[in-house]
Protein backbone atom coordinates (compact mmCIF):
# COMPACT_ATOMS: atom_id res chain seq x y z
CA UNK A 1 0.00 0.00 0.00
CA UNK A 2 1.48 3.29 -1.04
CA UNK A 3 1.91 6.19 1.33
CA UNK A 4 -0.67 8.32 -0.46
CA UNK A 5 -3.31 5.58 -0.39
CA UNK A 6 -2.64 5.02 3.28
CA UNK A 7 -3.16 8.72 4.04
CA UNK A 8 -6.42 8.73 2.08
CA UNK A 9 -7.64 5.69 3.97
CA UNK A 10 -6.67 7.40 7.24
CA UNK A 11 -8.53 10.57 6.23
CA UNK A 12 -11.71 8.66 5.37
CA UNK A 13 -11.58 6.55 8.51
CA UNK A 14 -10.67 9.55 10.64
CA UNK A 15 -13.59 11.55 9.28
CA UNK A 16 -15.98 8.71 10.07
CA UNK A 17 -14.61 8.24 13.58
CA UNK A 18 -14.72 12.01 14.17
CA UNK A 19 -18.38 12.14 13.16
CA UNK A 20 -19.23 9.23 15.45
CA UNK A 21 -17.22 10.60 18.39
CA UNK A 22 -18.76 14.07 18.07
CA UNK A 23 -22.26 12.60 17.85
CA UNK A 24 -21.53 10.46 20.91
CA UNK A 25 -20.05 13.41 22.81
CA UNK A 26 -23.11 15.54 22.14
CA UNK A 27 -25.37 12.76 23.37
CA UNK A 28 -23.45 11.94 26.57
CA UNK A 29 -24.79 13.34 29.83
CA UNK A 30 -23.37 16.86 29.93
CA UNK A 31 -20.05 17.40 31.68
CA UNK A 32 -20.40 17.99 35.42
CA UNK A 33 -23.97 16.73 35.62
CA UNK A 34 -25.45 15.65 38.96
CA UNK A 35 -26.51 12.09 38.10
CA UNK A 36 -23.95 9.41 39.10
CA UNK A 37 -25.94 6.40 40.30
CA UNK A 38 -23.00 3.98 40.39
CA UNK A 39 -20.74 6.49 42.10
CA UNK A 40 -23.22 7.19 44.88
CA UNK A 41 -23.71 3.50 45.55
CA UNK A 42 -19.95 2.85 45.53
CA UNK A 43 -19.41 5.62 48.07
CA UNK A 44 -22.11 4.21 50.32
CA UNK A 45 -20.67 0.70 50.13
CA UNK A 46 -17.17 2.01 50.84
CA UNK A 47 -18.32 3.91 53.92
CA UNK A 48 -20.21 0.86 55.15
CA UNK A 49 -16.92 -1.05 55.09
CA UNK A 50 -14.97 1.70 56.84
CA UNK A 51 -12.68 2.40 53.88
CA UNK A 52 -11.89 6.12 53.72
CA UNK A 53 -10.49 6.07 50.18
CA UNK A 54 -13.41 5.05 47.99
CA UNK A 55 -11.18 4.40 45.00
CA UNK A 56 -9.17 1.86 46.99
CA UNK A 57 -12.44 0.30 48.10
CA UNK A 58 -13.63 0.00 44.50
CA UNK A 59 -10.30 -1.39 43.34
CA UNK A 60 -9.59 -3.87 46.10
CA UNK A 61 -13.01 -4.70 47.49
CA UNK A 62 -15.99 -4.00 45.25
CA UNK A 63 -14.15 -4.78 42.03
CA UNK A 64 -11.20 -6.76 43.36
CA UNK A 65 -11.68 -9.33 40.62
CA UNK A 66 -10.85 -6.69 38.00
CA UNK A 67 -7.66 -5.85 39.84
CA UNK A 68 -6.74 -9.52 39.69
CA UNK A 69 -7.04 -9.30 35.92
CA UNK A 70 -4.94 -6.15 35.90
CA UNK A 71 -2.26 -7.89 37.93
CA UNK A 72 -2.42 -10.77 35.47
CA UNK A 73 -1.82 -8.37 32.59
CA UNK A 74 1.09 -6.76 34.41
CA UNK A 75 2.59 -10.14 35.24
CA UNK A 76 2.20 -11.41 31.69
CA UNK A 77 3.68 -8.23 30.24
CA UNK A 78 6.72 -8.49 32.49
CA UNK A 79 7.10 -12.14 31.55
CA UNK A 80 6.89 -11.20 27.88
CA UNK A 81 9.48 -8.46 28.28
CA UNK A 82 11.86 -10.78 30.10
CA UNK A 83 11.56 -13.31 27.29
CA UNK A 84 11.93 -10.70 24.55
CA UNK A 85 14.85 -8.95 26.19
CA UNK A 86 16.84 -12.02 27.20
CA UNK A 87 20.44 -12.35 26.17
CA UNK A 88 20.55 -14.11 22.81
CA UNK A 89 23.20 -16.65 21.82
CA UNK A 90 25.03 -14.23 19.52
CA UNK A 91 25.31 -11.55 22.17
CA UNK A 92 27.73 -11.02 24.98
CA UNK A 93 27.81 -8.84 28.03
CA UNK A 94 30.28 -5.98 28.06
CA UNK A 95 31.17 -4.67 31.46
CA UNK A 96 29.85 -1.08 31.55
CA UNK A 97 32.47 1.56 32.11
CA UNK A 98 32.32 3.31 35.46
CA UNK A 99 30.74 6.73 35.09
CA UNK A 100 31.88 9.92 36.74
CA UNK A 101 28.91 11.93 37.86
CA UNK A 102 29.26 15.47 39.16
CA UNK A 103 29.41 15.41 42.94
CA UNK A 104 26.26 17.46 43.75
CA UNK A 105 24.20 15.21 41.50
CA UNK A 106 25.60 12.08 43.12
CA UNK A 107 24.97 13.48 46.59
CA UNK A 108 21.41 14.47 45.66
CA UNK A 109 20.69 10.99 44.33
CA UNK A 110 21.99 9.33 47.49
CA UNK A 111 19.96 11.67 49.74
CA UNK A 112 16.74 11.38 47.77
CA UNK A 113 16.97 7.58 47.40
CA UNK A 114 15.84 6.81 50.99
CA UNK A 115 13.33 9.67 50.94
CA UNK A 116 11.74 8.26 47.80
CA UNK A 117 11.70 4.71 49.22
CA UNK A 118 9.97 5.92 52.38
CA UNK A 119 7.50 7.96 50.32
CA UNK A 120 6.70 4.89 48.23
CA UNK A 121 6.06 2.79 51.33
CA UNK A 122 3.98 5.62 52.83
CA UNK A 123 1.84 5.83 49.71
CA UNK A 124 1.26 2.06 49.73
CA UNK A 125 0.51 1.92 53.46
CA UNK A 126 -1.99 4.79 53.37
CA UNK A 127 -3.67 3.51 50.22
CA UNK A 128 -6.99 2.86 51.94
CA UNK A 129 -7.03 6.30 53.61
CA UNK A 130 -5.55 9.02 51.43
CA UNK A 131 -4.90 9.20 47.68
CA UNK A 132 -2.44 6.55 46.60
CA UNK A 133 -2.22 2.81 46.83
CA UNK A 134 -0.25 -0.21 45.84
CA UNK A 135 0.30 0.77 42.26
CA UNK A 136 1.44 4.35 42.79
CA UNK A 137 3.65 3.53 45.76
CA UNK A 138 5.16 0.52 44.03
CA UNK A 139 6.23 2.55 41.02
CA UNK A 140 7.72 5.25 43.26
CA UNK A 141 9.71 2.73 45.29
CA UNK A 142 11.00 1.01 42.16
CA UNK A 143 11.92 4.34 40.57
CA UNK A 144 13.78 5.27 43.75
CA UNK A 145 16.06 2.26 43.35
CA UNK A 146 17.09 3.47 39.92
CA UNK A 147 18.44 6.67 41.38
CA UNK A 148 21.54 4.55 41.97
CA UNK A 149 21.95 4.21 38.23
CA UNK A 150 21.37 7.93 37.70
CA UNK A 151 23.56 9.08 40.56
CA UNK A 152 26.34 6.53 40.25
CA UNK A 153 26.58 3.89 37.54
CA UNK A 154 25.00 0.67 36.42
CA UNK A 155 27.34 -1.56 38.38
CA UNK A 156 26.28 0.14 41.62
CA UNK A 157 22.66 -0.61 40.79
CA UNK A 158 23.43 -4.22 39.90
CA UNK A 159 25.07 -4.78 43.25
CA UNK A 160 21.93 -3.91 45.22
CA UNK A 161 19.51 -5.52 42.80
CA UNK A 162 19.51 -9.32 42.88
CA UNK A 163 17.19 -9.77 39.93
CA UNK A 164 16.18 -13.32 40.84
CA UNK A 165 14.86 -12.11 44.17
CA UNK A 166 12.68 -9.50 42.51
CA UNK A 167 11.35 -12.03 40.00
CA UNK A 168 10.44 -14.34 42.88
CA UNK A 169 8.77 -11.59 44.90
CA UNK A 170 6.79 -10.58 41.82
CA UNK A 171 5.38 -14.09 41.51
CA UNK A 172 4.89 -14.43 45.28
CA UNK A 173 2.89 -11.19 45.42
CA UNK A 174 0.53 -12.42 42.71
CA UNK A 175 0.16 -15.69 44.62
CA UNK A 176 -0.51 -13.77 47.84
CA UNK A 177 -3.33 -11.91 46.12
CA UNK A 178 -4.84 -15.18 44.90
CA UNK A 179 -4.46 -16.84 48.30
CA UNK A 180 -6.11 -13.89 50.01
CA UNK A 181 -8.98 -14.25 47.58
CA UNK A 182 -9.22 -17.99 48.11
CA UNK A 183 -9.33 -17.67 51.90
CA UNK A 184 -12.65 -15.94 51.34
CA UNK A 185 -13.86 -19.09 49.60
CA UNK A 186 -12.51 -21.29 52.41
CA UNK A 187 -14.23 -19.09 54.99
CA UNK A 188 -17.52 -19.90 53.31
CA UNK A 189 -18.12 -16.72 51.28
CA UNK A 190 -17.13 -15.70 47.78
CA UNK A 191 -13.75 -15.32 46.06
CA UNK A 192 -12.09 -12.03 47.16
CA UNK A 193 -15.08 -11.14 49.35
CA UNK A 194 -14.18 -8.66 52.06
CA UNK A 195 -15.58 -10.66 54.96
CA UNK A 196 -12.42 -12.17 56.39
CA UNK A 197 -11.21 -9.42 58.71
CA UNK A 198 -13.01 -6.92 60.93
CA UNK A 199 -13.53 -3.58 59.24
CA UNK A 200 -11.75 -1.67 62.02
CA UNK A 201 -12.13 1.98 62.99
CA UNK A 202 -12.85 4.38 60.13
CA UNK A 203 -9.81 6.38 58.98
CA UNK A 204 -7.10 4.35 60.73
CA UNK A 205 -4.33 2.29 59.15
CA UNK A 206 -5.99 -1.03 60.04
CA UNK A 207 -9.41 -0.17 58.59
CA UNK A 208 -11.08 -1.60 55.53
CA UNK A 209 -10.76 -5.32 56.24
CA UNK A 210 -8.85 -7.06 53.47
CA UNK A 211 -8.14 -3.85 51.50
CA UNK A 212 -4.75 -2.96 53.09
CA UNK A 213 -3.47 -6.51 52.57
CA UNK A 214 -4.44 -6.59 48.91
CA UNK A 215 -2.96 -3.12 48.57
CA UNK A 216 0.36 -4.32 49.98
CA UNK A 217 0.35 -7.34 47.65
CA UNK A 218 -0.20 -5.10 44.63
CA UNK A 219 2.49 -2.72 45.89
CA UNK A 220 5.08 -5.48 46.13
CA UNK A 221 4.05 -6.91 42.77
CA UNK A 222 4.25 -3.58 40.97
CA UNK A 223 7.56 -2.60 42.56
CA UNK A 224 9.19 -5.92 41.63
CA UNK A 225 7.62 -5.88 38.18
CA UNK A 226 8.98 -2.41 37.42
CA UNK A 227 12.43 -3.35 38.69
CA UNK A 228 12.51 -6.49 36.53
CA UNK A 229 11.17 -4.60 33.52
CA UNK A 230 13.72 -1.82 33.81
CA UNK A 231 16.47 -4.38 34.42
CA UNK A 232 15.67 -5.93 31.05
CA UNK A 233 15.82 -2.59 29.28
CA UNK A 234 18.93 -1.42 31.15
CA UNK A 235 20.75 -4.66 30.35
CA UNK A 236 19.95 -4.19 26.68
CA UNK A 237 20.86 -0.52 26.59
CA UNK A 238 24.00 -0.64 28.70
CA UNK A 239 25.54 -4.10 28.83
CA UNK A 240 24.49 -6.48 26.09
CA UNK A 241 26.26 -6.09 22.78
CA UNK A 242 26.11 -7.99 19.57
CA UNK A 243 29.03 -10.30 18.91
CA UNK A 244 31.41 -8.45 16.60
CA UNK A 245 31.87 -10.02 13.18
CA UNK A 246 29.23 -12.70 13.67
Amino acid at each position, binding site marked *: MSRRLRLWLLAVGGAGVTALLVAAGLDLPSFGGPSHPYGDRAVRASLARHTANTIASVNFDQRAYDTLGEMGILFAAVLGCVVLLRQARDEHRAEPEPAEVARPVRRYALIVLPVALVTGIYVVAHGQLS*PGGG*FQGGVVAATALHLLYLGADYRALERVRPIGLFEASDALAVCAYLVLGLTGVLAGTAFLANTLLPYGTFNTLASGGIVPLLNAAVGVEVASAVVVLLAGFLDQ*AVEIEEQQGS
Partner: protein
Amino acid sequence: MADAVIVVALLLVAGSATAAVAVRDPARQALVLSVLGVALAVLFTVLQAPDVGLSQLAVGSALTPLLIMLAVRKVRRCGRTGDETR
Protein backbone atom coordinates in the same frame (compact mmCIF):
# COMPACT_ATOMS: atom_id res chain seq x y z
CA MET B 1 -15.71 31.10 35.65
CA ALA B 2 -15.24 28.33 38.19
CA ASP B 3 -14.33 25.99 35.35
CA ALA B 4 -11.50 28.19 34.06
CA VAL B 5 -8.85 25.97 35.61
CA ILE B 6 -10.39 22.88 34.00
CA VAL B 7 -10.39 24.59 30.60
CA VAL B 8 -6.75 25.62 31.01
CA ALA B 9 -5.75 22.08 31.98
CA LEU B 10 -7.69 20.59 29.06
CA LEU B 11 -6.02 22.98 26.63
CA LEU B 12 -2.59 22.16 28.04
CA VAL B 13 -3.26 18.43 27.59
CA ALA B 14 -4.54 18.94 24.04
CA GLY B 15 -1.54 21.12 23.19
CA SER B 16 1.05 18.72 24.56
CA ALA B 17 -0.69 15.76 22.89
CA THR B 18 -0.46 17.57 19.54
CA ALA B 19 3.19 18.34 20.20
CA ALA B 20 3.89 14.72 21.17
CA VAL B 21 2.54 13.57 17.82
CA ALA B 22 4.19 16.32 15.79
CA VAL B 23 7.69 15.89 17.21
CA ARG B 24 9.15 13.07 15.13
CA ASP B 25 12.47 12.35 16.79
CA PRO B 26 11.85 9.73 19.51
CA ALA B 27 14.24 11.30 22.05
CA ARG B 28 12.56 14.69 21.70
CA GLN B 29 9.17 13.02 21.72
CA ALA B 30 10.04 11.44 25.06
CA LEU B 31 10.56 14.95 26.46
CA VAL B 32 7.15 16.04 25.21
CA LEU B 33 5.55 12.85 26.54
CA SER B 34 6.86 13.57 30.00
CA VAL B 35 5.36 17.08 29.78
CA LEU B 36 2.10 15.44 28.63
CA GLY B 37 2.24 13.21 31.70
CA VAL B 38 2.58 16.24 33.98
CA ALA B 39 -0.27 18.04 32.19
CA LEU B 40 -2.48 14.96 32.54
CA ALA B 41 -1.68 14.75 36.25
CA VAL B 42 -2.74 18.38 36.69
CA LEU B 43 -5.93 17.74 34.70
CA PHE B 44 -6.76 14.74 36.89
CA THR B 45 -6.27 16.88 39.98
CA VAL B 46 -8.68 19.54 38.79
CA LEU B 47 -11.15 16.79 37.83
CA GLN B 48 -10.91 15.72 41.49
CA ALA B 49 -9.14 12.42 40.86
CA PRO B 50 -5.98 12.59 43.00
CA ASP B 51 -5.47 8.80 42.93
CA VAL B 52 -5.38 8.76 39.17
CA GLY B 53 -3.17 11.84 39.15
CA LEU B 54 -0.69 10.11 41.44
CA SER B 55 -0.43 7.05 39.24
CA GLN B 56 -0.10 9.20 36.11
CA LEU B 57 2.71 11.11 37.81
CA ALA B 58 4.43 7.90 38.87
CA VAL B 59 4.23 6.42 35.37
CA GLY B 60 4.47 9.50 33.19
CA SER B 61 7.17 11.58 34.80
CA ALA B 62 9.95 9.05 35.24
CA LEU B 63 9.06 5.52 34.14
CA THR B 64 7.85 5.97 30.55
CA PRO B 65 10.60 8.48 29.63
CA LEU B 66 13.21 6.11 31.06
CA LEU B 67 11.85 3.18 29.04
CA ILE B 68 11.71 5.20 25.81
CA MET B 69 15.17 6.70 26.28
CA LEU B 70 16.68 3.27 26.97
CA ALA B 71 14.99 1.91 23.85
CA VAL B 72 16.32 4.85 21.82
CA ARG B 73 19.82 4.22 23.07
CA LYS B 74 19.66 0.51 22.27
CA VAL B 75 18.29 1.18 18.77
CA ARG B 76 21.07 3.70 18.14
CA ARG B 77 23.65 1.13 19.20
CA CYS B 78 22.06 -1.54 17.01
CA GLY B 79 22.11 0.85 14.05
CA ARG B 80 25.76 1.67 14.63
CA THR B 81 26.97 -1.93 14.79
CA GLY B 82 24.73 -2.78 11.83
CA ASP B 83 26.38 -0.06 9.74
CA GLU B 84 29.86 -1.22 10.71
CA THR B 85 29.31 -4.82 9.71
CA ARG B 86 27.56 -3.91 6.48
